[in-house]
């Protein structure tokens, strides 16, 4: 080590045209959140990564624990919430569930709230936690063969209590105190909280769909106080939570008779997105038989929510393929050739879509094994290119920042 010390002393005096000695210990921080910053989860690396779609680079990551990883983003305070499950010995030992609180500028952990070790660790991220519009309460869906919600008071950073669900599952928020769940018979369950996060009232409706005939998926999107659920057969079921009792808007179909004959179906693990400013619905579709409701999509169909009219069909390309984080592609001429072949011949295999909420919105796609994103102009549908690698695998996409409020 002595020679190194000497080197430093010498460097101090001799450094001129040379590269100047640098200091250690610096850590990047992020500027204000941008609309084109998108989070993409990676379950193999147990994280969600923040990608800058304009800069085409990774900005940082937040790790999660066992099971699904889907951060929730406060609008009224600079905080990100990650429900997480841990075992004291990794795969065994004592289980601890927490809601971890991160700072969106430093991506550093700033707090945690312990919750009952009952959090559901299912294969779907969507509908498993919900944040009230005023960021006061977080509801976490619990699955222990029985179902319940853990309510966290985020202002006080305390566990407010557990509320049982009557044979219902999942949680979707609308407004400041209202949370929706779906029941096994096709009914809706609406829970209203009081100011302490305890149950103020509950409503269990009659079934609004038949799960045995044509179930709605868990992958719903929200417009204002209305949640839009889509069924395996492509029927949109609006559920309005503005009143104490939910109201079920008129249903409408993504597909006409001819399209059904062509076997167009909804598919993938995150198959709906909404641009709130233009009130457009984006649906990930493919041609397939019955029971292909989780198969990846080949096109995104765009609808006007005002009248359910389809505005556009966007043919998708493969979002890119990586192996253990290494993108399979070329630079230079070979790169353009490879991209052309990928665009032309690779199956799109899109499993996840989302849309940014700004006035120049982007449609973002990923495949679960891609570790890479496909980016499109959400208005024209034009393919803008790929951004990646994002990690080893891809999961739920989130564009939480910018644009109109829900």
């Amino acid at each position, binding site marked *: 080590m002595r020679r190194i010390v000497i*080197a*430093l002393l*010498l*460097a*101090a005096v*001799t*450094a001129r*045209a*040379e*590269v100047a*000695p*640098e200091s*250690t210990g*610096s*850590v*990047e921080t992020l500027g204000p959140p941008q609309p084109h910053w998108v989070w993409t*989860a990676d379950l*193999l*690396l*147990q*994280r969600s990564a923040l990608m800058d779609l304009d*800069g*085409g*680079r*990774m*900005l940082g*990551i937040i*790790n999660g624990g*066992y*099971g*699904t990883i889907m951060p929730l983003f406060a609008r009224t305070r600079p905080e990100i919430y990650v429900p997480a499950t841990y075992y004291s010995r990794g795969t065994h030992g004592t289980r601890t569930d927490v809601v971890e609180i991160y700072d969106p*500028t*430093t991506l*550093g*952990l700033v707090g945690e709230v312990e919750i009952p070790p009952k959090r559901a*660790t299912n294969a779907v*991220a969507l509908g498993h936690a919900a944040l009230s519009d005023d960021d006061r309460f977080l509801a976490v869906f619990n699955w222990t063969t029985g179902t319940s919600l853990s309510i966290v008071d985020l202002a006080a950073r305390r566990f407010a209590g557990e509320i049982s669900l009557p044979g219902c599952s999942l949680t979707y928020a609308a407004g400041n105190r209202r949370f929706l769940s779906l029941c096994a018979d096709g009914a809706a369950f609406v829970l209203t909280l009081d100011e302490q996060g305890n149950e103020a009232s509950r409503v269990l409706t009659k079934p609004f769909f038949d799960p045995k005939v044509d179930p709605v998926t868990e992958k719903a999107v929200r417009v204002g106080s209305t949640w839009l659920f889509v069924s395996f057969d492509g029927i949109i079921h609006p559920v309005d939570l503005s009143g104490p009792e939910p109201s079920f808007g008129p249903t409408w179909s993504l597909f006409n008779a001819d399209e059904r004959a062509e076997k167009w179906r909804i598919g993938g693990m995150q198959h709906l997105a909404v641009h709130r400013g233009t009130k457009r619905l984006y649906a990930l579709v493919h041609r397939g038989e019955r029971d292909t409701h*989780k*198969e*990846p999509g080949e096109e995104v169909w765009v609808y006007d929510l005002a009248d359910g009219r389809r505005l556009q069909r966007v043919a998708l390309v493969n979002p890119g393929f990586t*192996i253990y*984080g*290494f*993108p*399979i*592609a070329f*630079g230079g001429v070979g*790169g353009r050739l490879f991209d052309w072949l990928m665009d032309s011949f690779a*199956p799109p295999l899109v*499993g996840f879509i989302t849309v940014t909420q700004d006035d120049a919105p982007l449609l973002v796609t990923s*495949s*679960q*094994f891609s570790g890479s994103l496909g980016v499109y102009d959400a208005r024209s549908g034009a393919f803008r290119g790929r951004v*990646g*690698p994002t*990690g*080893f*695998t*891809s*999961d739920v996409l989130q564009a939480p920042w910018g644009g109109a409020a829900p």
Partner: protein
Amino acid sequence: MTSRLDDWVDRLTRQVARRTSRRGLLARLAALTVGAAAVPLLPVSRARGASRAPIPGEPDPSTAAGNPSECEYWRHCAIDGFLCSCCGGSQRACPPGTEQSPVTWIGTCRNPADGKDYIISYNDCCGKHICGLCFCHRNEGDKPIYFPPRSNDINWCYGVSTVVYHCSTAIVLGLATETKS
């Protein structure tokens, strides 16, 4: 992780059923080549890193030797890890939310811009799980673990909150007094 991993692999499995016949020829073609070629193939393209102003005295950033997101960047001659430049940091700074280890191993790398040898400190960034991008492992002057100051196989995440490794920086400490042995 499991379930989601399932669903991700699911895409593979489902596609086989649907495409094996249709793309059988293509598949065979790939199979015959990937076994031999996948390795050289993979890292041909890399994540686009931070675009930053050139550092005085360094090679042209448009060249690999001057690009902190490339394994061939001149400072990386003894690095072992993921390049922080691809992970939200830079060759000098850690990505957001990580901590930079104050202790680390040292490399002696020649700067092609001035032909001089510099002492490079590969401080690890710690506290988050592996970045996974832009992996780079070069062993110029690397020594076994019992010779710590020159061993890149040691996990250098010490003097920080956790030993969990995320990525590595490559910081210029100064000129080396001896040319590289």
